[in-house]
């Protein structure tokens, strides 16, 4: 019984939040890694791309709520996803045409691209703040919990409770669906294969008649979809605030690099590694240990390795360790 209580506490405070957060990071990191793989630069504007997509979804959701459209127990924001993805795709393609294409023709070095993306990031940053403001926006509606603490306790009779939020369940399910579709697309379809070929060896791909502009276009469309979905899921689960999305850039890049930049499987693995490390290192283990250990070994302190203020430091440290000992990431990166 004690052990079951320990597991429930662990799941409630570590397991479930980390899985949800990991899925959100994985989707975001997939976008980063795709841009890196196909277009060969680190897209610093990715966090703000997520913010832009989410902003459109928030605005659509508010409009739908005002005219009385709802999605039953699920959040209305899901219905606004297609519109948000479409708007984000338009923005990304427009930016590519106006900015990145110029540097592509120049065959600029990756570091120039990186600085250019930094500029794009600031523009998007301002755009989002200009339209929706810098404040916190909540747009969640529908049923809050799949199972709440009270229901869980009544159901199992355990001393400890377990809550699963609708948004957490939704995040994991959506992430799985999106990843399955993405891999099917990359590995089975003609366009996906041409993207991989382009990523693998650009010259060879050009020689075999692959249209580079088409590959770039498709990449941006996929990135727009991934960024918007990741952003909306994160915003539903937590809350939408432009600055928070900007800050997400660090864990996103940490995930992509830990997994191996340019490698989609790596991005997913990296997302979960970062999420679980952040949560487990900053969690106070006292309650779990009190249940799990025999009475005479019970800890009197909180057993917290780092306070939660150091959450971002955890991503940094992992990043440094991986770059020192395995620079290509856990899965060999730099190829799709």
């Amino acid at each position: 019984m004690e052990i079951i209580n320990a597991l429930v506490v662990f799941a409630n405070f570590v397991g479930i939040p980390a899985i949800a957060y990991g899925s959100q990071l994985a989707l975001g990191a997939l976008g980063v890694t795709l841009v890196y793989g196909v277009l060969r630069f680190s897209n610093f504007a990715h966090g703000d791309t997520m913010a832009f997509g989410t902003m459109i979804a928030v605005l659509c959701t508010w409009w739908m709520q005002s005219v009385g459209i709802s999605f039953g127990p699920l959040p209305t924001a899901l219905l606004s996803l297609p519109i948000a993805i479409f708007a984000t795709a338009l923005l990304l393609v427009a930016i590519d045409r106006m900015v990145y294409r110029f540097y592509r023709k120049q065959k600029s070095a990756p570091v120039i691209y990186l600085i250019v993306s930094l500029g794009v990031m600031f523009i998007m940053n301002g755009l989002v703040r200009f339209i929706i403001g810098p404040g916190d926006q909540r747009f969640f509606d529908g049923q809050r919990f799949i199972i709440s603490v009270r229901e869980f306790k009544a159901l199992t009779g355990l001393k400890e409770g377990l809550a699963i939020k609708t948004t957490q369940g939704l995040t994991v399910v959506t992430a799985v669906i999106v990843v399955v579709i993405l891999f099917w697309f990359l590995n089975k379809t003609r366009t996906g294969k041409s993207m991989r070929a382009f990523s693998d060896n650009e010259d060879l791909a050009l020689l075999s008649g692959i249209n580079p502009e088409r590959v770039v276009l498709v990449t941006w469309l996929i990135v727009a979809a991934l960024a918007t979905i990741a952003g909306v899921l994160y915003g539903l689960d937590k809350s939408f605030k432009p600055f928070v999305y900007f800050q997400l850039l660090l864990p996103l890049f940490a995930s992509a690099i830990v997994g191996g930049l340019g490698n989609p499987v790596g991005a997913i693995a990296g997302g979960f590694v970062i999420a679980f490390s952040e949560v487990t290192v900053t969690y106070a283990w006292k309650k779990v240990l009190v249940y799990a250990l025999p009475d005479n070994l019970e800890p009197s302190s909180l057993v917290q390795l780092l306070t939660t203020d150091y959450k971002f430091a955890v991503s940094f440290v992992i990043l440094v360790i991986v770059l020192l000992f395995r620079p290509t990431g856990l899965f060999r990166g730099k190829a799709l």
Partner: protein
Amino acid sequence: MKKLLTATAACALMAGAAAAEEIKIGVILGFTGPIESTVAHMGPAADLAIQEVSDSGMLLGGATVTSVHGDTGCIDSAGAVAATERLVTADGVKGIVGGDCSGVTGAMLQNVARPNGIVMISPSATSPGLSTAEDDGLFFRTAPSDARQGQIMAEIMMEQGITSAAVTYTNNDYGKGLADAFAASYEAAGGTITLSAPHEDGKADYSAEIGALASAGGDRLVVAGYVDQGGSGMVRAALDSGAFDTFQFVDGMISAQLIKNFGAEIDGSAGQHPSPSPELAARFAEIAGGNGFEPSTPFAPESYDAAALILLAMQSAGSSDPAVYKEHVMKVANAPGEPIQSGELAKGLEILAAGGDIDYVGGTGVELVGPGEAAGNYREMKVEGGEDVTVRFR
């Protein structure tokens, strides 16, 4: 030529002594900056008291009083010091109503008020740090220190039989000061604090912070934060994970927004915030209405009281010299004496002129304690059936 000059100067002096004195009072608040919307009502409230005294014609044998405004910007210490310097040296103000935010108030006190020996009464600086600041007896405030709220909160919780609690505070001077003051009083009263942990405002997710607090346990979670910021995030995360069911709220949390955010989910929670009793508030609203400001704005009655205290102290001392009347501020503010409500400043001046004693009550029930700061009136509230219910005033 020299003689003529001397004669002119002498004439001017005599003329000055013969005519009634003209006294200037500086009103130095954050007319621009983060709390400008509040100050828009505080400045006129201070002016109202000054006007009332001036119109009565009873201060120091018919002195007229005018106010001179200065801007602190709330967070701009350099600007606030420069404005105060100008009012003291160029305009020759005899007393200052201000500053507003705690940081600039400390800077004004140390850099201008103390070197020049000017009395300062702040209507809204609440940092506990100002209680122990060196002030040469020149600094007072009509707003209670946050430390006081910590004591009240500890009292309320002990009365309700809550003997162990976890504390989360917003990571700034306000939150930390409040949490420390609460911890000192609560532990002295026999309570146990399982964990006192800060939270950063403006994050999307507070489940990790709640995880640590849940591990530490406690009967209730004390939330010393802001309702529009991390405070609500912490409550939301605590409710979602089932870590805590009931909370104790501070003034930064108690607002209509709190009830709107959580409603019946936080039934059984309690809180306290500085607030004058309804009778005092109604009276102040009556006399202050129609003067172009909203009397129920936080710190508006405090501003009125700050200005009134300076002028009553002058009357009690029989002098507008800050070095003399600073000794009289506590005397007119506290018992014994005839209670003086807001709008009765003329009556107070009259009693003092006749050599009587007054106990200034004003818009907030002023009672200065310790180093010259308001004891404050607090409203104890609880959440019941998703509504904010007043338990009592204390």
